[in-house]
């Protein structure tokens, strides 16, 4: 499974990558971007299976990236998990309205990450089966 990790802090990208590998995802298939603009360029250039993004980033924020993904026919079905320090009601609602698949508030545990990922894949499998 090809995953794109988007965060402006290199530490956080590395932590998320580390956790994903720990959860059994293949390290070489995980790629990184440091803001929404670069992420979008990478998503357009090659096929990914999932995006894990921060909210607060320069140039293009996570919510803008999510909206851009949902607006593009080729990308709109891509699962997006937000991993962010933004935890106020309005922002969570905005992410939900923009069509986020999961939302994790930092700091989080590996257990939380696993739970949210499992839930995303369960829902995708269910919607795939009913379609």
């Amino acid at each position: 499974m090809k995953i794109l990790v988007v965060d402006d802090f290199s530490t956080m990208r590395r932590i998320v990558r580390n956790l994903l590998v720990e959860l059994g995802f293949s390290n070489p298939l995980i790629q990184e971007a440091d803001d929404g603009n670069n992420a979008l360029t990478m998503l357009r250039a090659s096929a990914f299976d999932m995006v894990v993004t921060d909210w607060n980033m320069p140039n293009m924020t996570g919510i803008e990236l999510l909206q851009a993904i949902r607006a593009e026919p080729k990308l709109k079905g891509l699962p997006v998990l937000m991993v962010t320090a933004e935890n106020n009601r309005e922002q969570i609602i905005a992410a939900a309205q923009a069509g986020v698949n999961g939302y994790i508030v930092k700091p989080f545990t590996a257990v939380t990450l696993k739970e949210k990922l499992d839930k995303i894949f369960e829902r995708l499998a269910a919607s795939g089966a009913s379609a």
Partner: protein
Amino acid sequence: MNATMPLMDESMPPEVLALLNSADGTAFEQALDTMVRQREQHLFRALGVLARDLHGAVSRLGSDLANEGMPDSMADARNHLAEVLEMSSKAAHRSLDFVDRMRPEAEALSANAAAVLDFNSSETDPAAVLARQAQVFAAACGEGLNDMVLVQSWQDLAGQRVKKVVGFIESVESSLMELVRLTGALAGREAPVEVAKVSSQDEVDRLLSEFGF
């Protein structure tokens, strides 16, 4: 105003009292205007002095901090905060390097112990007992390393807080300058063109001097 009604207010200046009691409406209004304007000028001058004092206090604070080896300008403060981000990021990466180095070691220990147990799974043989202990230790290390990775995410959170503080400092600075601009405009001097952002101490001093503070 009924000029025949006696005015008893002793607190009014005598010239206003006299005008109030006179029949000359225009002279009365002019006197009133002058009085109001004088009072406004006093108020604005007082505001100006206040802004000047505030600016002085901020400057003194800046130089006091400089004497303590602390930043003495907004630019310095921002640089210091950038250094904090850089240092905490380096520390987090070194911890993650350590995890990357130790994880395979723990996995290898666990695998080696399993190989020993395949060969000798006795409950009492010291080699088998040690192999089991090694497996428990390797598993505990793996969990500990995972926790250590997660703890590093505080660096990211702390970094975001620092970035917000930088933004707050900038907004306080520009609000203060906006206040100076407004008080200057109210004091009857021509207001300078829109102050977008004042970044250096020189610019602050220049702006203040435009209003005679």
